[in-house]
């Protein structure tokens, strides 16, 4: 029966952590049963390379050292793999317990509980029930987009990527070459900021509009990464939250609470109508149309024309 991968990884980790001198591939193959069972040099080599990568993903620092005879050896030094002392009190431990539960994405959920396990192994106090000390709070970070994981890794490793992207109103997706800088979640949706090589400019992409696979590209970033990457400001602009103008509308007395909440001024007109001055940003026309006959736009003329245009489209059906 084939030896389970976890057992093989565990053995490699213990061998590399336990040695004080670099161990050659030959020595490792002789010490680990799963490698002895490998039926060819090729399959051993492939297995060994993959296992080393997996252990590095788990945080192990594995050094490659060449000895005097030119033979390559591997070891994981104690001092570079040791967790520095961390002293967390019970409150801090409970807070991290809540934080570790927020990820709904398998890789990050696994990594977060792995971090807690390491901290607990290093002596962090154990919370009986994190929610007891934190009331009934349950924050969750949703990740529905399949592009998330490859982009997260590409941002981490600073690798250029290629993907097909469908702009909000485009009929067809277009291929984009991007140097990914940072991912940000706002209002439950994930966005990527990076350097768009085709356009030679910084761009923000919404992950749900990426179609198909995210592919990595060889090579380094060509554009300089800014100190501060601003995703939210760009997205807030799309969402119409950046406004520099105002609009004047009529609103039925009982209607449109959110419009009232945003209004700079409300004036009663009588006859069941009020007049409101509201901030005018991107997308206001579509929002006002939602209120149907309860809203009439007075100014500016451009907004009034947009709303009438939309209403005509719906009226025609």
């Amino acid at each position, binding site marked *: 029966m084939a030896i389970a991968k976890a057992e093989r990884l565990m053995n490699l980790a213990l*061998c590399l952590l336990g040695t004080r001198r670099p161990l050659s591939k030959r020595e490792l193959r002789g010490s*680990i049963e799963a490698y002895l069972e490998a039926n060819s040099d090729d399959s051993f080599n492939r297995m060994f390379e993959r296992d080393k990568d997996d*252990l590095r993903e788990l945080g192990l620092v594995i050094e490659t050292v060449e000895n005097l005879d030119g033979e390559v050896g591997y070891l994981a030094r104690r001092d570079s793999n*040791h967790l*520095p002392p961390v002293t967390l009190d019970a409150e801090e431990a409970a807070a991290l317990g809540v934080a570790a539960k927020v990820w709904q994405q398998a890789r990050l959920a696994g990594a977060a509980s792995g971090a807690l396990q*390491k901290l607990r192994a290093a002596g962090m106090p154990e919370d009986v029930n994190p929610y007891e000390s934190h009331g009934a709070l349950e924050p969750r970070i949703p990740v529905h987009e399949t592009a998330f994981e490859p982009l997260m890794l590409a941002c*981490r490793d600073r690798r250029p990527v290629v993907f097909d992207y469908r702009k909000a109103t485009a009929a067809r997706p277009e291929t984009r070459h991007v140097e990914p800088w940072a991912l940000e979640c706002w209002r439950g949706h994930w966005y990527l900021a990076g350097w768009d090589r085709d356009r030679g400019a910084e761009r923000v992409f919404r992950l749900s509009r990426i179609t198909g696979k995210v592919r990595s590209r060889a090579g380094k970033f060509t554009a300089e990464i800014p100190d501060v990457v601003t995703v939210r400001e760009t997205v807030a602009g799309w969402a119409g939250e950046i406004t520099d103008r105002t609009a004047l509308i009529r609103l039925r007395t009982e209607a449109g*609470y959110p419009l009232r909440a945003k209004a700079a001024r409300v004036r009663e007109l009588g006859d069941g109508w009020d007049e409101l001055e509201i901030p005018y940003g991107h997308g206001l026309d579509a929002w006002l149309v939602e209120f149907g006959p309860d809203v009439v736009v007075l100014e500016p003329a451009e907004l009034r024309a947009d709303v009438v245009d939309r209403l005509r489209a*719906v*009226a025609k059906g």
Partner: protein
Amino acid sequence: MAANAIDQTRRMLSLVTYLRERPGARVADVARAFGVTEAELISDLDVLPLCGTSFRGGDLLDIDTDGERIWWHNPDDVAAPLRLAADEATALLVAARAVATLPGLRESDREALVRATSKLEAAAGETASAGDRLSVTFESEGGVFAEVDRAISERRRLWVRYYSPARDELTEREVDPIRLFALGHTYMEAWCYRSEARRTFRLDRVAEIRILDEAAAPPELELRDLSEGLVQPSADDPEVVVEVGPGGRWVAEYYPHDSAEELPEGGLRITLRTPDPASLKRLALRLGRDGHIVAPQDLADSARKAARAALEAYEQV
């Protein structure tokens, strides 16, 4: 399977350190500390004695269990606490920073998070820097959040004025709060006395809130599983079919749906279910020339009617 082997290896590496510090640890306690079932822990304990620095030399881990307690007989130097991997540090740090942004979070909880975050950054060293490439902001109305949080911990009833966009109306209700959660937006799950049912309230739609003197007495309810998503339409709900052009593809991102078929020229035919199709009239109005309701007919008619009534108002003002 591969992901499981990684998580299992990660866990076993920490287990080795953890068990050394706690001779005779109880299986139940260790399983809880590691967030796994007892069966999963026992299967880890089956693998560990097969691991070591050399299977032939006999330097294997000497860990055994009688099913209730776990014993450890190795020399001390096998098991120093391991440093955090980049993904582990990122997962925990990003989550902790995100939770700390929740407006209305209790000050003592926020302080514990901030303290824990900076200790973690120090312990993670350079690996913490990849965490800067990922960020999450939760949105919520701070004041409302704090009131709900207080009502939950004091087990008191709440009075709220709540805005329902589907009907464009404010209603007053008394509710017994059950929990707060954040999933993009921040929500309160509560027993609502107006509808005599469990309801989910989005905090940014609470226009007014007051804590009442009465004690909360919500019926015993099983908490909803949030990983299934917030809206969980039932199979008995009426079906709505919407056809959109490229400009209306966002509908598929915002509304949970049964199917979304591609149409020529970048459009979509979206089939979804809702207990109250009339609530989608706003969507029909909003779509304008970017889409229309195909079924049910009375929903399509009501949107057309609303648009015509609105256009009439424009002829007068």
